[in-house]
């Protein structure tokens, strides 16, 4: 566990001085609170001996100081610890990104399924709680608790011992016990919640079909069942969660009672000044503020560590595709690309996605790669971009194995407009400029024109600054494909790979698009990957990829 914490601390990478400052302010907040109650108790006791008012002035100053200093310390502590949390969040994102970037896309394939990716992002987000809710409270409790015990022990060693035992019980034993009681229910709670969530999502997503089949009532009944399971478990969880707080309060009470008992006894035996009885009792009562957040901290730490472990699982992966130690100079355009008797698979033990496949792309040639889905067409793209290395055979640029070049040099030779190309939630301009950051508006217009979407973009009120929405959702399927295409055309890459560019288009549009691309790409090598007939008549060569049995 400590190893995981240490590694997560490295990922969140916050300077120790900042952590120390936040913790120190946390300790002061607690101690000023203890100080306020203890001094006030002393003040009243001393006053009861009817001394001259002047002799009380030290205690009065103390009470006022603590009264003012505590809110200030608390305020600064909250700022400091939130600052740490925000810093760690920013760092965590950047560092985790750096670690997973070389893995994409092949070694991250398993995280792209369903909600796993958003869970990953949520996991990274939750690292901000590591310090704020997980590590600071125990640290503060330890130091502030120890200081309170020391203070009590100065006046009466026995009281110190009792307080130490009480804080140990209330701050360590109770939170851990409560956590272990609630762990089982919280696992079952998470399961039941997951089940209900997927049921809910499914019901809402499929509500039209359920209505069409007349199954609304049935569905509501099963939902109600899943829901009542969750409610039942959450009630049990509440029972376990409440236990921690209840026990802590009990321990607090018993500790105060015993501290009072030993103090009264000590005074009766003449070992303790009577004005200190109230001080000790109130000190003990106030000191428990230190351990109050610990039950919550244990829960928070468990959740954050689980998230952290999932992140470490990913960042621990060793990138399989790496640059050679002594790379060749970047390949020169034009280039001949060849796949020679290639076999490739995504993981050991998996079926080869491609086997015994050869393909030659001479400069300026237009090749159509035809094949049904699942035949490995997209694998060819991954091999060309060196997202994947063949396990047999090789991929070459002018006869040189791709593995001899730097990855960036390989990728700058190839522009891909794929069916799964991503449009970022930004403006059309930003999305295009990804391909060539220095491109000016004229060049952008030329690329959009070649993709036959310029007039549409110009007709928009915001033109190039129109936002495309998350994953390009504001655009239609056809518009998306054309923007993706324009982006690929914007690069200087001598090879253009089009992966199912017409997948979501109606036939006349698809035909026009392919013809447009072929004419716009004049001079470049084209590899058009498709399962549909458009473009076949324009090709120099058609290669068919058959489905493997």
């Amino acid at each position, binding site marked *: 566990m400590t190893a995981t914490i240490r590694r997560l601390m490295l990922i969140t990478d916050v300077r120790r001085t900042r952590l120390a400052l936040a913790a120190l302010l946390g300790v002061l907040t607690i101690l000023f609170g203890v100080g306020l109650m203890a001094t006030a108790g002393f003040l009243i006791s001393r006053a009861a001996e009817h001394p001259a008012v002047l002799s009380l002035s030290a205690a*009065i100053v103390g009470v006022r100081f603590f009264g003012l200093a505590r809110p200030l310390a608390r305020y600064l502590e909250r700022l400091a610890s939130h600052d740490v949390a925000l810093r760690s969040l920013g760092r965590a994102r950047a560092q985790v990104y750096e670690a997973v970037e070389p893995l994409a896309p092949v070694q991250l394939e398993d995280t792209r399924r369903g909600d796993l990716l958003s869970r990953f992002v949520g996991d990274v987000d939750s690292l901000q709680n590591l310090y704020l809710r997980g590590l600071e409270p125990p640290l503060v409790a330890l130091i502030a608790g120890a200081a309170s015990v020391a203070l009590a022990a100065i006046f009466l060693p026995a009281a110190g011992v009792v307080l130490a035992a009480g804080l140990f019980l209330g701050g360590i034993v109770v939170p851990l016990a409560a956590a272990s009681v609630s762990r089982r229910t919280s696992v079952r709670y998470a399961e039941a919640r997951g089940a209900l969530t997927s049921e809910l999502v499914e019901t809402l997503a499929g509500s039209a079909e359920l209505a069409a089949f007349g199954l609304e009532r049935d569905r509501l009944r099963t939902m109600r069942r899943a829901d009542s399971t969750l409610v039942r478990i959450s009630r049990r969880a509440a029972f376990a969660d409440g236990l921690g707080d209840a026990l802590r309060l*009990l321990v607090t009470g018993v500790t105060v009672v015993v501290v009072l008992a030993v103090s009264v006894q000590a005074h009766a035996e003449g070992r303790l000044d009577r004005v200190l009885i109230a001080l000790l009792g109130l000190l003990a009562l106030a000191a428990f503020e230190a351990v109050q957040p610990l039950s919550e901290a244990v829960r928070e730490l468990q959740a954050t560590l689980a998230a952290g472990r999932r992140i470490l699982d990913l960042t621990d992966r060793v990138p399989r595709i790496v640059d050679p130690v002594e790379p060749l100079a970047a390949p020169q355009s034009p280039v001949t690309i060849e796949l020679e008797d290639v076999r490739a698979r995504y993981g050991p033990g998996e079926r080869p996605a491609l086997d015994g496949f050869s393909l030659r792309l001479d400069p300026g040639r237009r090749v159509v790669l035809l094949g049904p889905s699942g035949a490995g067409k997209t694998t060819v793209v991954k091999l060309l971009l060196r997202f994947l290395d063949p396990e047999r055979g090789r991929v070459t640029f002018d006869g040189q194995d791709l593995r001899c070049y730097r990855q960036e040099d390989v990728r700058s030779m190839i522009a891909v407009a794929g069916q799964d190309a991503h449009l970022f939630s930004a403006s059309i301009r930003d999305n295009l400029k990804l391909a060539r950051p220095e491109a000016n508006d004229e060049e952008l217009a030329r690329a959009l024109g070649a993709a036959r979407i310029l007039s549409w973009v110009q007709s928009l009120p915001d033109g190039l600054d129109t936002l495309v929405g998350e994953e390009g959702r504001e655009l239609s399927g056809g518009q998306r494909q054309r923007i993706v295409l324009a982006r690929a055309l914007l690069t200087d890459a001598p090879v253009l790979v089009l992966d199912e560019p017409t997948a979501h288009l109606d036939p006349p549009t698809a035909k026009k698009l392919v013809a447009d691309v072929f004419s716009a790409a004049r001079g470049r090598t084209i590899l058009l990957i498709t399962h549909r007939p458009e473009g076949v008549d324009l090709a120099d060569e058609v290669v068919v990829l058959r489905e493997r049995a």
Partner: protein
Amino acid sequence: MRLLDQALVRRAAPVRSLLVLDAILGAASAGLVLVQAVLIARIVALGFSGASLDDVAFDLVLLALAFAGRSVLTWGFEVAGRRAASTVLSELRLELVERRLRSQPLATDGAETGEIAATAVQGVEGLEAYFARYLPQVVLAVIVPVAVLGLVVAIDPISAALMLITLPLVPVFMWLIGRYTEERTRERWLALRLLSTHFLDVVRGLPTLRAFNRGRQQAAALDEIGERYRRTTIGTLRVAFLSGAVLELAATLGVALVAVTAGVRLVEGGLGFQAGLTVLVLAPELYLPMRQLAAQFHASADGVAVAERMLELVDEELPSRPEPNLIAPSAMSATVRFEAVSFAYPSRPGLVLDGLDLELYPDETVALVGPSGSGKTTVGSLLLRFIDPVGGRISVGGLDLADCRADFWREQIAWVPQRPTIFRGTIADNIRLGDRGATERSVRDAAVLAGADRFVQALPLGYETLVGDGGRPLSAGESRRIALARAFVRDAPLVILDEPTADLDRTSAAVVAESVERLRAGRMVLLIAHRPELVEHADRIVILADGKGRAAITDEVL
């Protein structure tokens, strides 16, 4: 979020008894707080005047019992609060689902469904803190200060007056929260979500970034954005945390003021020792529930912000119409007519359909073609009565469909949507959606006719294979075939097929086309397509353009 949001509080109505229980537990707890203070002061005072341990033993035991009692009450308080919350949340969830199912399911755009599902789950969860902790804490924040003040007045009116002086600071804090922090918290939450979505976007787009050699630069950008966000957020927090600080200041200053004044009056003999101590022990308890209330308020504010969208959905007024009671005639023999039908989605400007005329005769297959966005799917939704026309009417055998009961009408329809939903369960369960009573035999027969049998049989568990969320993933072609099997097993006189071959490769498309051919025999079929392959299966073709339909011949489309 307001201190007591009417819409939210109304939601708590069904658990009023639990909230009353909370109030009782809270009141009992407040009583014990008073007992504790009195006992602590008494024990110290006795010890002060030289009493032995034996003299105070009884009081010590009472004090321990008081703590034990509070401990049990706290436990009960937590359990009751969470119990109330879980009931409220459960009702909210079910109400949301019920409304979505009962209201016109396709009245909103399809894209919104996912978002609604997400808000439903997160939104409901976000409210737990509000109902489980915040609302019960409101009760405590009222009961405890009143009880404490009551006792202090009885013991020492001057201290009570001092406490009353510090109390006006509390409304100041309330005002600060209500006015300022609210908006800021909301903004902060939105910004945080924006950042999180941005990160998700970047991670999703990683393959594209790498393909364009832009992968590495993003780390620095992420760092910079995070830093910028931190700076602005800390700026807001500096002000936002002030409200907490003000309240804390009221608490500590109150204690200090009471202590110092009591001390001076003790010296002068105006106050007894035990009375002074009791007041001192009570002073922090006056403010504690309010401070906790502030903490709970902040803890639940984020959740309430998430829940807003969902509450909008639940509180949305549904157009209430009397349920029509006519029964539509059978599509086996009756003609379905769209008569100058117009339709517009509330979320989009302009008419999707604008005076569409269309006839569907029994035992006839009509292909509806047209470019994407021309309203083909809308025609299907109208026919299913997910939506009703805004102009014109749809009639079945001369009867206005809007006057007929939707559930009975739908029993006559088998619908194969563009992207069929595969529900969690076995393949057989999924096919049985078409007809719940279907025997194993008829499920298989339907699968054979839909061209699904072959791939299902090849699975190790065959028809018992788990599919849907968490089960075996199905390809687009496989899902389509399952949906077709649903249509076969339903054996309804009217079939609506929405682009059954879209996005399928040639082999799968051919299998689907074959089964469409089998399905259309003896049925009224509306075939929605933008690709030509299927059109040859139609008896008649209608082209949909500019919201109107016109007849076309096969050659024109191909």
